[in-house]
């Protein structure tokens, strides 16, 4: 059985102002597989991450639940942190106590706390079943295709070409320039479009 570490984030008052984080922590300690629970004001901050890394090493944690914000926001942050601590970066699960709980249930703190417990319980159950995953590597063809030869396509092509890479611009019309070439003067400086 995995030794699961759960890191509960206050996100300042974003989560902590609604969810009773200490009470949630107390409950999480009773869940099967949970070997360690820690609360943090800001888990994503440098001291927050340092505390997480230290705890993983000290308590021999081998899978992590971070109960904080949306994984869209900070999953890569925490993946890096657990990797630094020596774990596979895919042995982590996030419980979204901010967007999915504190923010939407701000008017009902008690029920929000209940939901927070359930969200963490769910994440703990999943992380227990997670397996390490490994990235593979694919080669990169260093040649870019720009579809459309208006001002956007021309600018992107010039910047990529200036960095030393080959670029092909595909343009439907018989000339590049697009809409910009049709314009007379352009605001606010009234210089020419072509």
């Amino acid at each position: 059985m995995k030794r699961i570490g759960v890191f509960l984030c206050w996100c300042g008052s974003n989560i902590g102002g609604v969810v009773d984080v200490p009470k949630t922590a107390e409950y999480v300690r009773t869940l099967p597989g949970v070997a360690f629970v820690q609360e943090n004001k800001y888990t994503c901050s440098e001291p927050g991450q340092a505390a997480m890394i230290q705890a993983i090493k000290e308590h021999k944690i081998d899978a992590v639940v971070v109960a904080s914000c949306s994984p869209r926001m900070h999953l890569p942050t925490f993946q890096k942190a657990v990797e630094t601590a020596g774990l596979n970066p895919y042995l982590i699960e996030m419980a979204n106590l901010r967007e999915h709980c504190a923010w939407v249930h701000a008017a009902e703190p008690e029920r929000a706390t209940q939901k927070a417990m359930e969200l963490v319980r769910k994440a703990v159950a999943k992380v227990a079943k997670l397996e390490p995953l490994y990235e593979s590597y694919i080669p990169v063809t260093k040649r870019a295709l720009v579809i459309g030869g208006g001002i956007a396509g021309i600018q992107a092509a010039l910047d990529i070409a200036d960095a030393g890479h080959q670029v092909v611009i595909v343009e439907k019309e018989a000339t590049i320039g697009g809409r910009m070439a049709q314009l007379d003067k352009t605001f606010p400086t009234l210089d020419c479009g072509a």
Partner: protein
Amino acid sequence: MVAAAQHPNITLFTYSEVDSVGGYIGNFDVTIKKRAKYVDYSKCTGCGMCETKCPTKKVTSEFDEGMGQRTAIYKPFAQSVPNKPVIDNKSCKKLIDGKCGVCAKVCPAGAINYEDQDELVTEKFGAIVMATGFDLIKWGDYYPEYGGGTIPDVIDGLQFERLVNAGGPTGGKIKRPSDGETPQTVVFIKCVGSRDTLKAKSYCSRACCMYTAKHAHQVREKIKGSDVYVFYMDVRTPGKLYDEFYMRTREQDGAKYIRGQVSKIYQDGSKLIVRSEDTLVGKSVEVEADMVVVETAMVPRPDSVQVAQTVGFSYDKDGWFTEAHPKLRPVETNTGGVFLAGCCQGPKDVPDTVSQASAAAVKVVGMFSKDQMATNPQIAAVNEATCVGCLLCKPICPYKAIEAKEIQERVHGETVTRTVASVNSGLCQGCGACTAECRSGSINLKGFTNLQLLAEVDAACL
């Protein structure tokens, strides 16, 4: 434009379209259709003799938005890049019924080739930048009360640009299309087709407030003693030096801004009657105009959805290309290696377009800074032992990542061949659509397997 054409690292494929896109991030195989130009660019010097002599002179010019005419062999405009013509096979007499051939006779370089054919070329690319731009809404279809496009002197903003452009059909003189007279009273109407949830598009087209101010300024500058009216809902000028520009148009140029939505435009003799309300005064107003310019909503190119499906990324209800995240990943799509620049993502003005294009370029250059790239391992995996090869997963995959694969097995001492699904790890973006579709539960998303998700469900239902 010229800088792009002269850059040693840039190749231009004009008069060309993307036919199909295969492969995946870092390794796209793109087939490009080079349409027949009927002119050999390796011989053509761009002298323009063919255009001068072409007998078909009355083709409506697309570049001039119908405000001018062109020949059948033509350059869209005098400063075209490349500065060489193409033959429009829909209007060229030689190509339609074989009776002409003047351009081939007069061409001193022998560059005309009536036998030219469309050509398909396939090339390999690591990244794709979408920069397909916008169109203006066909306002006539939505606003019959403005004449529905039948009143010749009611024109749109791009047509006005061609009228006022020194390189345009009137040499930069503002003349109204019906009789070529210089209009003394010009009315501009903003938000035609935009911010109109009932009739047209709900979004703000973003650049029109500013270019309307520019148009108003240009009329006042070019036509002495002219009257300019601008009908508006709001004036939105966030941007460096933008509000100053707008205030100058009002205060120094003397453009008259009237807050109100125009309810009707109709022809009365040589005049156009514009009826509206003035919501700040609470009265109805009527302006006798010589020309009306409707400043219309930007809309995606008519083929934007088809292009998005060809390249393989998502688009929104209006047909604009969707960025991966509205704030944090504004120039990436959800498909790895495909980036967005300019108005194909949504209406924007020139400074924003240029900024976004440079940002997209940086993303591409960042990708190219490494020889190989790591792929996300959270992708679909097929259990070949249980997959029955029904391939229901194949059409459901939005990234074209699933293919059929033949495998050989030994069953009771005999070798049998059967079909199973196979996931291309470069194309799969880990969306999980296939796992929901699979009847036998043979496809799992790594990191989100059925077992792992059911453990979550069990815990949630405790």
